[in-house]
């Protein structure tokens, strides 16, 4: 007997036991809502959509810090100056996106719901490793469209509440378009400015730095990325636009107040005015 036989009754997919995953459920009831399940004609479509750029994440003594610039581009054109690319994935983790902006934001929305859905159905959240693996699985579904120029690459970082000690609690995972997942030891960056941001972090990063210091070097690394990569936006005091910075610590995931980030960014600009090469 299938649910569709009785008018009014919810379809059987709603009542089936076994899966706690929202994206698996979507695959059954509305596959067209999954980004990777939309048929595309052959060709490369990289030019049709805005591209989100640089994200950095670093481990601190208290957990992790993630920051992202505010620019999205379409070729030479700056399509957004105030896009936000770093999000809380749930209460203890953060996710940032680079690549096709529209698909990336959709992926984050689906991923946030995936974690919440699991938590509601199971009554307990996924482990941090479980969350990272789930993100990799979702990326694998996008491989087809990624190869057609619509790639999305996320960066995932979080505070592991099950960790044996505080030093091991902050964790960073990077991904590639095929869904490969890589645990990062200290810091990582994704997006077009990532090379420059990573070089900057390489010189500034020290293990066991505090959150406040980590916010400073994260903002500075984005400044360096914007310095050399035209697709990464630098701090913009004329429009009062500064990077989005978030932390995940024992207290949970939260965004650093814009006023605080603005102060940090202004001090970076002031320092670079004195000495342009940092």
């Amino acid at each position, binding site marked *: *007997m299938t649910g569709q*036989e*009785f*008018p*009014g*009754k*919810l379809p059987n*997919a*709603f*009542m089936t*036991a076994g899966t706690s995953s*929202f994206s698996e*459920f*979507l695959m059954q*009831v*509305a596959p067209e*809502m999954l980004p990777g399940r939309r048929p595309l004609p052959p060709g490369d479509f990289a030019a049709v959509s805005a591209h989100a750029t640089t994200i950095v994440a670093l481990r601190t003594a208290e957990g992790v810090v993630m920051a992202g610039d505010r620019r999205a581009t379409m070729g030479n054109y700056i399509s957004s100056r105030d896009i936000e690319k770093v999000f809380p994935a749930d209460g203890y983790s953060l996710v940032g996106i680079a690549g096709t902006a529209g698909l990336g934001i959709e992926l984050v*929305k*689906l991923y946030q*719901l995936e974690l*919440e*859905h699991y938590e*509601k*159905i199971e*009554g307990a959240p996924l482990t941090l490793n479980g969350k990272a693996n789930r993100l990799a699985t979702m990326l694998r579904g996008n491989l087809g469209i990624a190869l057609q120029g619509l790639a999305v690459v996320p960066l995932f970082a979080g505070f592991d509440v099950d960790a044996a000690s505080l030093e091991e609690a902050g964790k960073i995972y990077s991904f590639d378009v095929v869904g490969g997942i890589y645990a990062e030891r200290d810091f990582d960056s994704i997006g077009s400015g990532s090379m420059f941001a990573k070089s900057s972090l390489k010189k500034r990063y020290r293990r066991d730095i505090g959150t406040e210091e980590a916010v400073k070097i994260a903002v500075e690394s984005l400044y360096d990325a914007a310095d050399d990569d035209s697709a990464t936006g630098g701090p913009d005091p004329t429009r009062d636009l500064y990077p989005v910075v978030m932390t995940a610590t024992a207290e949970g995931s939260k965004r650093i107040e814009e006023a605080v980030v603005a102060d940090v960014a202004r001090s970076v600009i002031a320092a670079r005015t004195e000495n342009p090469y940092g």
Partner: protein
Amino acid sequence: MAMQFYTSPEQIMRDRAEFARKNISRGRNVVVVSCADGVLLVAENVSSALHKVYELYDRIGFAAVGKYNEFENLRTAGVRMADLRGYSYDRRDVNAASLAKAYAQTLGAIFSEQTKPFEVEICVAGVGAGPQEDELYRLTFDGSINDEPGYLAMGGDADQLKEVLADGHDFEAPLADAFALALRALSSSGGNGTPRELTKEVLEVAVLERARPGRAFRRIEGLALDALLATPAAEPEAEPAADEAAETDES
């Protein structure tokens, strides 16, 4: 060919309803009360792992009595439906009424089409901007939907519990008072007229907090429950009210 005996539709429905009612009435009770701080859901539940009270969505909770596998099935369906709707439209487009209606249709279809009805009674509770805007829906095994503003009770002794709740309910009461009332109602049944003592081991308590942004559902467990349980003892009027309720039941 096997002989088919004729049974009238009235008889079939009556038998099914009686079957469901009988089994639901064996269950322990659940009380849902709307108060100033939000919607309080209290269940008498001996298990600490198998819940009777759950979160469906940001501002919506779920409570059930009856057969666990059946209401668990309905709960999962509700979470999926709410999440699907919130994902397709917006989080604010998910409301208690539409979930309750879908449940009603599903329960109704199962009742009339399948050999065995679901032996459950469920509540969909939505917390609003003010206590008067809270939505409490009670759904029975045959798909009937009841809009019961303020308070509701489910389980074997629901009618008796409802009398206690009707007597003491106040929309403007703080959470502690609402909890005392819920406890009074739950302990009024099953003690042969004298109120039973309910300890925290047999209570499952959750609240949809009105003031909390986003996901309003919060379980009250451990020390938080201890604190809440300590409050009614400090109130002298809690005891006589429970006695009164017991007396009215006997008469």
